[in-house]
């Protein structure tokens, strides 16, 4: 097990990310509130650089109680990383694709110690 320092907590703004390399490995580290999450920078769809993509809130359909649609809304509580190759979205917290259980990001253990962020490989 290798413990790799990514940076200081204070270097990360809320809802931000940093993509780092460790040898041949590429890892995206994300901050959401006080939580940090890390994922391999490889999209399970076609191997794209998923963590180098843009961040978008999850989109929801705006249905009323009669099941009529009133368009779509952003759910600001759910933030997705979007692979820039083909647009596949993955929840920053869970790594899961919002539309299928078949696709998920490859997790990397992340740890905060004494104000510093580490990933474990």
């Amino acid at each position: 097990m290798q413990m790799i320092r990514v940076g200081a907590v204070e270097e990360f703004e809320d809802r931000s990310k940093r993509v780092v390399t460790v040898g041949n490995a590429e890892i995206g580290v994300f901050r959401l509130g006080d939580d940090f999450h890390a994922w391999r920078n490889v999209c399970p769809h076609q191997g794209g650089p998923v963590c180098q993509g843009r961040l978008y809130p999850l989109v929801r359909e705006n249905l009323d109680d009669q099941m009529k649609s009133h368009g779509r809304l952003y759910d600001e509580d759910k933030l997705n990383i979007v692979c820039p190759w083909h647009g596949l979205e993955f929840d920053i917290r869970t790594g899961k694709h919002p539309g299928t259980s078949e696709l998920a990001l490859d997790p990397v253990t992340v740890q905060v110690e004494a104000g510093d962020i580490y990933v474990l490989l």
Partner: protein
Amino acid sequence: MDADITKAEDHPVQSIDTHTDTRDYLAHSRRDAERKGYVDWLIVDVDAHHVESVSWAEVTEYIEDPVVRHQATMYQKERVGAPPYGLNGDLGLRYQDVGGRIPHQSSQREKVEETDVHRDVVLTRRAMHGLAVNYMVLFPTPMLFLGMHPQTEMEVFLCQAYNRWLTERILPGEPGIVTLVVLPFNTPDEALKMVEQHADNPNVIGFCVTSTRYKPVHANEYMKLYRAIEESGKPIAFHAGYHWQDPSLATCNTFLGMHSLGFTWCNIVHMTNWILNGIPERFPKLKTLWVESGLAWVPFLMQRLDDQYLMRQSEAPLLKKMPSDYMRENCWYTCQPMEKSNMRALECTFEMINAESQLLYSSDWPHFDFDTPSVIHDLPFLNEQSKRNILGLNAAKIFGLNPKGPKAG
């Protein structure tokens, strides 16, 4: 914790956007080719695109008609708030980038410092490097809608200008860049002239019909054109597209739905007319290539036409075998966007179309549903020879390309 502490390095490309160099964009694809070992294989990308409208002021200089050329020049110089001169299509409804999620679909604003060749040559070279391809067949983008142009003569003017610009300004810049000349198919006599004009150009490896159009492919006025293409020894390709104003597709409220159907529907219609009217029997050496409709539509149409044909053979008397036989033996297909969600269905599709000889790799770069060569390389049910055939050798055979690559003797 018993661990060694080291420091991670920041990745040099933190976020990919419209300014990212294509080589950085496709770095993972290049790395896959090197790690998986197909970087040295012959790979022919039978369908990639450039955005010709970026160079539209240059293209319109090649319009032959002096009055139209002057109109175009003035328009390009002075008109504001309008799409490029003469181009039709739903120019404001191009939602392919999913609201900015897929930046390379929107724009390639990367730095190009080379001045010895056209910018499009540089961008194409970078994509060829990233995808590890030896040949890239270049198609236009907004011009794919020209078959729906209200002025049929404008399709002629613009195809003629684009083909000259492409063959004179772009293709000579890089031996691996080749093309299928885009035909003004709504005017068959002019399409025939264009075939005659370009048939001997080695960088023109075939002829392209943009499939979004309502003119039936079996109309008698096309027979001279098909004869000429057959005699050229080069294939005719039907490149799919969409048409959101089509009455049935206009019921789709999402680009997702419209695009999923539109890119298959046009080729389903053309293939049906092509086969049932016996065009493969009339021109047995004419090779047809069906581009950018994916593959899942093919088994559907094979089964559907076979089923109905047996009951109504008298309506298709030129046929000497089942429709699916023609679709398997006389037609070739590009793979992208290859539907992969059901691997058993995909394997069955490969068997039904005899993919080992009839399937050609295509990326569709830089569009949002592009495929890297790994989509073929990673298939679990193919042996290495089949993968090599699909990724390059089949294309080399039907297009007469050097199987050692453009720069090898």
